[in-house]
């Protein structure tokens, strides 16, 4: 070692004390100038947009609230320029559960409450990990038992299931089954032997190359022709399977993207520790891959929920189907706008909640965006 300097010359290093960051002055006027009117192009855009808002918002508010009818019947509504909300109130049961027997309506209601409770527990982060996953796996089974009837409860034929209940059921089972299926397809395509790989690619590309409507027709109309007559799968289940396949093919490609993003060193580190290849994939690779692709995965869940509205084509009366039916009620003719507005609002509310939950998940955990 060379001597860098002699003792006598040494000065002591005194670190500077850290200062707080300067606080910015943000008055409302400053904010406006900075954010909306920072140049002539921005100012013009802002003015145009404010103009559009000033034009649209009063019209909307008038129609939704000020001129709207909140109590009465079709006659009262037709005399007013605003929206007709009594129509929606009256149709709520039918929109929620379709033609489900009136006297048994408490059963889907119980399932609905269970769903809301679980949504609350999940969104508020009160349950996690194993409990969270088991609860979400158990919920659809519970809902199916409650809606369909079992263990001595009166059975309700699947042809009577409908409304928002049916939409949510299709989406919920679809998501819960298609994510693990998608993971398996992605793993097969990424790590599988040539045969497994070819099968996975074939499945994914076949399903992705066909519109959902075609798949729904296939499972609903064509599949019974090919299956032996003693093998009767009811229409709803066939459609559910079709939706699961469709969703899984897309999920698989999203998840494969996540698998590709994991550095090779992760696999090597786990293998070098003597952990088996399967456990390495299950505990090291897949959890990280899923976290990487959370935004598009949530996107697929939202898309699946909205895609359930296509089942009307193969004869199921989901939420949108019921909305259509309600708009044709002779007692309430002419209130389609309200019906579709309500439908849009419900779809938006559910999708936006999912989207918010996805964002919250991204921000959580060791590599969250907010850390």
């Amino acid at each position, binding site marked *: 070692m060379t001597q860098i300097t002699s003792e006598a010359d040494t000065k002591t290093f005194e670190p500077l004390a850290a200062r707080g960051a300067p606080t910015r002055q943000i008055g409302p006027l400053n904010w406006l100038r900075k954010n909306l009117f920072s140049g002539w192009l921005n100012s013009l855009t802002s003015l145009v947009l404010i103009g559009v808002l000033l034009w649209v918002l009063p019209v909307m508010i008038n129609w939704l609230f000020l001129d709207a009818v909140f109590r009465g019947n079709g006659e009262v509504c037709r005399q007013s320029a605003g929206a007709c909300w009594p129509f929606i109130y009256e149709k709520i049961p039918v929109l929620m559960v379709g033609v489900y027997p009136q006297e048994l309506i408490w059963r889907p209601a119980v399932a609905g409450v269970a769903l809301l409770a679980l949504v609350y527990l999940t969104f508020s982060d009160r349950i996690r990990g194993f409990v969270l996953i088991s609860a979400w796996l158990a919920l659809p089974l519970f809902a199916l038992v409650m809606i369909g009837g079992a263990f001595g409860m009166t059975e309700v034929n699947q042809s009577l299931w409908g409304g928002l209940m049916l939409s949510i059921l299709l989406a919920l089972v679809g998501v819960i089954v298609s994510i693990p299926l998608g993971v398996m397809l992605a793993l097969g395509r990424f790590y599988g032997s040539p045969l497994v790989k070819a099968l996975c690619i074939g499945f994914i590309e076949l399903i992705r190359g066909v519109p959902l409507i075609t798949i729904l027709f296939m499972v609903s109309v064509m599949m019974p022709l090919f299956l032996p007559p003693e093998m009767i799968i009811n229409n709803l289940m066939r459609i559910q399977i079709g939706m699961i396949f469709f969703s899984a093919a897309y999920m698989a490609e999203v998840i494969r993207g996540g698998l590709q993003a994991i*550095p090779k060193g992760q696999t090597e580190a786990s293998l*070098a*520790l*003597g*952990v088996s290849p399967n456990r390495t994939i299950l505990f090291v690779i897949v959890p*990280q891959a899923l976290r990487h692709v959370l935004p598009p995965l949530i996107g697929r869940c939202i898309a699946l929920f909205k895609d359930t509205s296509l089942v009307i084509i193969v004869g199921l009366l989901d939420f949108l189907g019921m909305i259509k039916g309600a708009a044709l009620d002779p007692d309430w003719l002419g209130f389609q706008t309200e019906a579709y507005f309500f439908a849009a609002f419900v779809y938006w509310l559910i999708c936006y909640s999912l989207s918010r939950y996805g964002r919250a998940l991204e921000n959580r955990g*060791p*590599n969250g965006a907010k850390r």
Partner: protein
Amino acid sequence: MTTKIESRVTTNETVIEVAKVNKWFGDFHVLKDVSLSVKKGERIVICGPSGSGKSTLIRCINHLEEHQEGRITVNGTVLDENLKNITNVRREVGMVFQQFNLFPHMTILDNLCFAPVWARNMPRKEAEDTAVMYLERVGIAEQRDKYPGQLSGGQQQRVAIARSLCMNPSVMLFDEPTSALDPEMIKEVLDVMVELASSGMTMICVTHEMSFARLVADRVIFMDGGEIVEENTPDKFFDNPQIDRTQKFLSQILAH
């Protein structure tokens, strides 16, 4: 760290036997007739220019790379296609990587417990106790509940060493463990490695830390172009290299 760590080789028991190993990456002949025998308790430092095959050699020892010709025996188990043999060897051989390769989605404690629980079926409680013991040994027990991303490079590498030790390996492989570290963090990792060496662990280290090699190594091996060029005790290797290629390499790395 100035005093030479005395050799701990007490038996003639061979732990690793590499015999006439050849390996190609495509058409590139990366290992040429490499033979190496490591005794229990022996500490070996491998150095050489990049692309000389030194990392590939130690990665063959736990079968992260597959050799095409020759024979590698670890603790009496021959490494071949048999996945069970490979996994058994990997449980016996710890490895520390240049890029640490901690699992970013697990806490430090979970990183350490992962392999004992899933590869040795150790009860979680016992795995945690072992993990805490090794974390204390590498001096970062207080970080146990953090995630790897919250630690400095030096701390992460110490965790990586502790993670390997949790499997109670009989051999430790180090693949350039300090090359990705800030200068000020190299020492804290080397200190852990020196401590490990003095405890009698069998070690093969690919490193360019020559002070470490002098202090710890029983043998220094110089590789170039996929073959072992020179092999000697550290004193003879550094002070009196026999082959011109070694002399040139040493003059390059000791010059700066």
